[in-house]
């Protein structure tokens, strides 16, 4: 963007820019209005309903923090939050690491690259409902992997994570990583392909060990892709619902419950709109707390001039 000499033509430059942006602004206005009304409107509606005693039908009385008190006294909700942290941490870290390794592997200019890329991306093309069901069968101790290995003669082989309260959440993590790492691979591979060959030549001349190159040179260059992948994965974490329904239905007991399932169950099955909305509001706050620093970093005052 060409700028006028500093100080003098600043004002005229701004008005020229504004005039140039007018058609674009006009074109985007309807979309902006829809976003504000639909998204912001729904958020306000959700928060407002969380302060009411609404059951099946929304009503607008006022019970203060009653629903929140009930929410935080509810063991199932507490377990859901714990699970969200366990799942979120392991799932994001696991998908990033595995996705990065797959991307590096494919970037070695291997033969039949297209085949591998397709194989890695394929899990992502399946819905979580299908994925979850297949994993559920595979992990079931009475007819899945455990039974198969035992039939081969290893009588004492045990793999019963999915029916164990302590371990079931980790089976969901594994299935989710299996599904999402292909996407991370695709994003990071695009980044790797954009890296200048000169850099590789330079590090070869310097004789730096290969892992060191990836860690200290390449990864910092991939930062925008890593951030993108992390944001996408984070969204998947907050929304996680279908894979739990397909794999464990929140069981054994309440050991794999997640907040989104808490909302859905109370909204539809249990005719308890108020409590569901209180849970949704807590989730909204959590998302805001998590992404604010990042938003500030990306769009904060420091960066505004840089991107102009």
């Amino acid at each position, binding site marked *: 963007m060409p700028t006028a000499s500093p100080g003098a033509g600043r004002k005229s430059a701004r008005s020229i820019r504004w005039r140039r942006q007018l058609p674009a602004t006009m074109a985007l206005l309807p979309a902006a209005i829809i976003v504000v009304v639909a998204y912001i409107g729904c958020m306000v509606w959700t928060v407002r309903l969380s302060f009411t*005693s609404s059951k*099946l039908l929304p009503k607008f009385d006022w019970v203060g923090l*009653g629903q929140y008190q*009930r929410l935080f006294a509810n063991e199932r909700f507490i377990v859901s939050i714990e699970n969200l942290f366990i799942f979120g941490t392991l799932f994001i870290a696991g998908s990033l690491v595995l996705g990065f390794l797959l991307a590096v592997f494919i970037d070695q200019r291997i033969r039949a690259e297209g085949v591998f890329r397709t194989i890695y991306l394929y899990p992502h093309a399946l819905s979580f409902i299908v994925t979850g069901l297949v994993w559920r069968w595979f992990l079931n101790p009475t007819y899945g992997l455990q039974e198969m290995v035992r039939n081969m003669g290893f009588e004492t082989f045990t793999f019963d994570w999915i*029916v164990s309260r302590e371990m079931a959440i980790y089976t969901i993590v594994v299935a989710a990583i299996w599904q999402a790492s292909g996407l991370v691979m695709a994003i990071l591979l695009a980044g790797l392909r954009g890296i200048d060959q000169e850099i590789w030549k330079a590090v070869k001349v310097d004789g730096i060990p290969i892992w060191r190159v990836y860690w200290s040179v390449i990864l910092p260059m991939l930062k925008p892709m890593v951030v993108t992948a992390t944001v996408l994965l984070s969204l998947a974490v907050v929304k996680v619902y279908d894979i739990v329904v397909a794999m464990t239905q929140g*069981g054994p007991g*309440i*050991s794999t419950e997640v907040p989104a399932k808490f909302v859905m169950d109370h909204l539809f*099955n249990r005719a308890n709109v108020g409590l569901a909305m209180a849970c949704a509001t807590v989730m909204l706050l959590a998302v805001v707390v998590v992404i604010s620093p990042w938003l500030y970093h990306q769009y904060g005052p420091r960066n505004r001039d840089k991107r102009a």
Partner: protein
Amino acid sequence: MAGCLSLSIAFPVAAEEMKAEVIHWWTSGGESAAIKTFADEFTARGGTWIDQAIAGGENARTQGINRIIGGNPPTAMQLNTGKQFDELVEADLLRNLDDIAEAGHWRDNLPKVIADAATRNGSFYAAPINIHGQNWFFYNAEVFANAGIEPPTTFAELVEDGKALRDAGVIPLALGGQSWQERLTFNAVLLGVGGRDTYFKVLRDKDVDTVHGDAFRKVVETYGSMRDLVDEGSPGRNWNDATAMVINGKAAVQIMGDWAKGEFIAAGMTPDKEYGCNIISPDEGFIIGGDVFVFPVVEGDEQNEAQRVLATLMMEPGPQVAFNEKKGSIPVLLNVDVSGMDVCAQKAMALLQNSDQQIPSSDFLVSPDIGGALQDAITQFWNAPEMSVDEFVDLYSDALQSGF
């Protein structure tokens, strides 16, 4: 089987065609065959049936209720018998069916529990369609013959039989470890072990003292001891997979509602021969649930007439029997002839004739919200062998008092 058209009712010829848009969640083979009997009957009476089958009870209920609130109500929608439509009645969104009930003598022929569940403040607001029993022992007859023991009729007998069945190499109890099934099992124990009095005091009166009393403790202890009867693959299993275990002789008994009968029939088994059905502790009673149709307030004579015709035919003996034979449930009218139905249905009908033995399922007694909270407590206890009876009693009584 043709529905009997009672000729005493003269149908006014509507200027335009009667259309009925019906929302329901009966999508499986037997279920859709059942609802089709109503559709055919409605067509025979000059109407046009617009079928709105939506898979999954939650989805169907959500969509129907959203349409009612949004001012675009269907002609009729299915709900479970119980408290699901309380708020719709309070908000004056449902049609009062008293005139139709009067003409069809509903009150005289319905079991008291069902009539109560379909009325609010003394007026009918729902047409009950069927009765599903919920406390059955379904068992594989051959398995018991091989083990040399009699099939159980009480929980004490079931727990006792456990060892002999294990020795014979079968799983004593086929349970799908999903929270709704664990709740259904618990409620069967609550009635069978705790007795009628305890059952009502806990679920209907929400009496905390009873929950902390000895009878309830015994219920909890019995329920806890049943963990030894299931296999390790139980958690997350679907109910029909559990039924399949009984069918192919891997397991001995399943506690389930009578919708499980359809699986035995599909496997070509006959009741009282290859498989059996015992109502658990029949002296205490028969836990019943079921389905109803509600009719939202609609505008226009044509729509109101369609609702009248629909509600009328659904509660006539002919269509009732035709529907329930296909559905595997039993008719809601006590005055219909069920001699053509299977042994299990006849056992159930015999019990229903005595109003003391009609035990409403927990859906009739507690709101969906509290029912859900109880379900969370029950599934926690069932899956935590280390949890003490006292802990569970506290958890359960908290759930019973939760909500606004």
